């Protein structure tokens, strides 16, 4: 399964269950406030607790929370398991740009070109402070820390252009530390790799 699908499913599972909870709590709260207003209900009942109810509303949320943890964790493992045969590209972050180094030592700045429908593994490192490689279209993000190599991978789909941003605040040019991901057909990618100029 494409990790993007896994992440999105986990995301929406948690969000929808939460929205149901929130709506329920809010409606019940408003209903009680209107229904039991003092002018209509001057004599309150003396209820101090109900242990069965309290056990129930501890156990059920625990089960739901654990299920959320499980889907969240499972979707995360998808981000970590790189399929064999992925195209490997080195990513170097610096104040304030992204440098991409390909297998044949070709370098490009702020432009990442990858072939379509291929697993891509990006090996990330930083040359100075902490940056964070963020590619929201493919749901991946990893901090670039000097001396601590890390990676992300994604399955490139149809050709297209996507935004790459720096997500970890890194100084005056942080918001301008942008790059483009270009997914292109295989032939175009091979030609681009061999081209000298950038």
């Amino acid at each position, binding site marked *: 399964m494409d990790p993007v699908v896994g992440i999105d499913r986990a995301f929406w599972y948690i969000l929808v269950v939460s929205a149901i909870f929130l709506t329920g709590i809010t409606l019940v709260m408003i209903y009680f406030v209107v229904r039991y207003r003092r002018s209509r209900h001057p004599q309150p009942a003396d*209820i101090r607790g109900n242990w069965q109810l309290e056990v129930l509303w501890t156990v059920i949320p625990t089960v739901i929370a654990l299920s959320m943890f499980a889907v969240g964790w499972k979707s995360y493992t998808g981000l970590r398991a790189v399929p064999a045969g992925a195209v490997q590209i080195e990513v170097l972050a610096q104040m304030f740009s992204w440098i991409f180094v390909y297998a044949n030592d070709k370098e490009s700045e702020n432009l990442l070109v990858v072939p379509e429908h291929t697993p891509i593994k990006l090996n990330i490192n930083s040359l100075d402070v902490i940056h964070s490689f963020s590619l929201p279209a493919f*749901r991946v993000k990893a901090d670039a820390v000097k001396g601590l190599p890390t990676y992300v991978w994604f399955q490139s789909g149809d050709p297209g252009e996507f935004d790459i941003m720096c997500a970890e605040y890194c100084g005056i040019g942080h918001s301008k530390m942008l790059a483009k991901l270009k997914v292109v057909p295989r032939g175009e990618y091979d030609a681009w790799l061999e081209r000298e100029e950038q």
Partner: protein
Amino acid sequence: MATTPSFFETPAPAGLTGIKAWLLTHDHKRLGLMYLWAVLFWFALALVIGLLLRLELMTMGRTIMSAGVYNSAFTLHGVIMIFLFVIPGIPAIFGNFFLPIQLGTDDVFFPRLNLLSWYLYILGGLLAIVSLFTAGGFPDTGWTFYVPFSIGTKHNVPMTVFAAFILGMSSMLTGLNFITTVHRKRSPNMGWMQIPLFTWSLYATAWVQVLATPVISITLLLVIAERLLNIGLFDPGRGGDPILYQHLFWMYSHPAVYVMILPGMGVVSEIIPTFSRKAIFGYKAIVFSSMGIAIAGSLVWAHHMYTSGMSDTAIFVFSLLTFLVAIPTAVKVFSWVSTLYKASIEMSPPLLYALIFIYLFSVGGLTGLVLGAAGPDIHVHDTHFVVAHFHFTMFGGTGFAFFAALHFWWPKMFGIMYNFRRAYIAATLTTVGFLFHYVPMFILGMMGMPRRSYDYLPQFAQGNALATVGGILLFTGIALMLVNLLLSFRSRIAAPANPWGGCTLEWTVPSPPPLHNFLRQPDIQDYPYDFTEILRKS
């Protein structure tokens, strides 16, 4: 009933007059008020900075300030809001004023330390101001002071970090005072299960303050040492580890978010039963959930670090623990809502704020589940989704609880009542503004807009413009709320001793209370939220 002179008319120690009666006081109530004015000053300042940040983001490119100013401004906004408003706010003001009264005693255990902690608070604030104008200006690091950036930047990081260190000392002393007061000065007739929930929440908070604050204090000193002595502990260029800093930072700063929210939960746990005239549902569950949050909340810090490069095992463990900490919070929300069942509810500004708190805080808590889940967090980590999430908890939560507390205890602290109509209008305006301000940020975050960004891509323009409109409404609402409270000093409508029909001890003493709080040893109810007596009298 013969009127007893209030603490306003009786200096402590006796013999002090004029301004000295305030600046040298040992009276917990005067100190509470001194904190009130200082905290409100900082809150107003950081609010204005927040509005300016929002105006800058209204349109793409430069709107009103440069990137450098923007970076220092969001750091200043964060530092002030966290260290000078949200952490000390409720405990230092309302805790100091009401914890001893709720316990049936005349003061905190260490009144002089209490005064010292106020001076440390003021000193920390002054240092933050001084660092604005000296040696490179206010830091541009964000309130998190992440290394190695905070080591390399030319801005005045050491002084600001030292200011945070001093403020930490202040909050530790307050915590120490609360723990000792609860143990040693509580009315002899009051058992543990007779302590009001606000005081319980302060007790849980105080433990976290005393145990976790030293971690950040040491870490901040290490940052200073790193900058001044180049020891290379966190600098990867010298073999240091930046991730170590993040662990140390969050080891305090995550428990600190429970320091921020627990007192707010305590406030709501007082207000809901009072205006319901009904026992709080599940008193013991709320007490234990406070302690549960304090303990479990201290073990989840690295959920701020899923993208940092730490091991997958660590992510597994911290994600699991994070979901467990959600349970005691859910229990509290269910208890509050159930308290309203078959109650006799009177709407009032404090109750309205408390109900809005429950809604906004629930949104904040539930979106926290998305962030606690390993996979989904990777997508929205360090985006505006996180900004919206923590503003829902810290502002919609603690902020609204603070507003609720102001309206709840204002008549007790000053003996005067404010205008209700304006208070309702302000609350509505603030809430509508709040939602328009922060809901777009959730969407911007899901689209991938990074936080702490001076500028943004065209696809984020619409959401940012909408958020700014919301921000202006929000600002107007809060301004109206504060003006309304201040206007009560002009109209001076006297408030009775028990305007709301509350049954904790602060409502049994005059408004404002006399110097020693109680004229005789107070009677302690077997159960702190027993409204039979109140109902009989009404």
